[in-house]
């Protein structure tokens, strides 16, 4: 049983590392600021969640796991808020997204 949990935790940790590196590659590869944000949200969701889940399995049912849960909840709430604030600020500042399709009904949402 312990070996099984250990194995699951290694898989989760490795998965988290792989996803965060993929996100890092995306941040370098993507063509403009707005598309880079999507790559960033990979490392912020999959990378973070898998890695913390792996650590949770290592810690078992202790206060450490409770702290890990709290870190995860906090990051899940703050990371979209920060991303949204960043995107909105960039759009207001006149950073133009490179778009293939633009289906916005109103030209721009006023500040």
């Amino acid at each position, binding site marked *: 049983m312990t070996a099984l949990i250990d194995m699951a935790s*290694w898989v989760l*940790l*490795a998965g*988290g*590392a*792989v996803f*965060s*590196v993929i*996100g*890092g*590659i995306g*941040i*370098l590869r993507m063509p403009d*600021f707005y598309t*880079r*944000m999507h790559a*960033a949200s990979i*490392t*912020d969701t999959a*990378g*973070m969640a898998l*890695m*913390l889940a*792996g*650590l949770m399995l*290592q*810690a078992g049912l202790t206060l*450490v796991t409770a*702290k*890990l849960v*709290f*870190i995860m909840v*906090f*990051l899940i709430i*703050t*990371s979209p*808020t*920060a*991303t949204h*604030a*960043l995107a909105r*600020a*960039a759009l*207001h*500042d006149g*950073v133009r997204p490179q778009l293939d399709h633009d289906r916005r009904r109103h030209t721009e949402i006023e500040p």
Partner: protein
Amino acid sequence: MFLAAIIGVAVTMLLILIRALLGPSAYDRILALNLFGTKTVLFVSVLGFLNGRPEFLDLGLVYALINFTGTIAVLKFMQYGDLGWDEASKDKPDV
């Protein structure tokens, strides 16, 4: 295995740092900065487990708080050029 995870995070941090240096716009750099912060939280947490000292998680938690506040503060400063009130609404209360 903790080592493999930590290497993965470190490589990601390196890639993010390259983006922060390349830019080109200030917003790319802020995005990279914010991501670098969340990766630091992961780095510190895994490092705590690697060293057998899970108390490091408290540092990670505080770092997450500071990182979020810092990002919002920088954005607010960029948008308004000020962290507090502007002249017009100086006498109005904040809440």
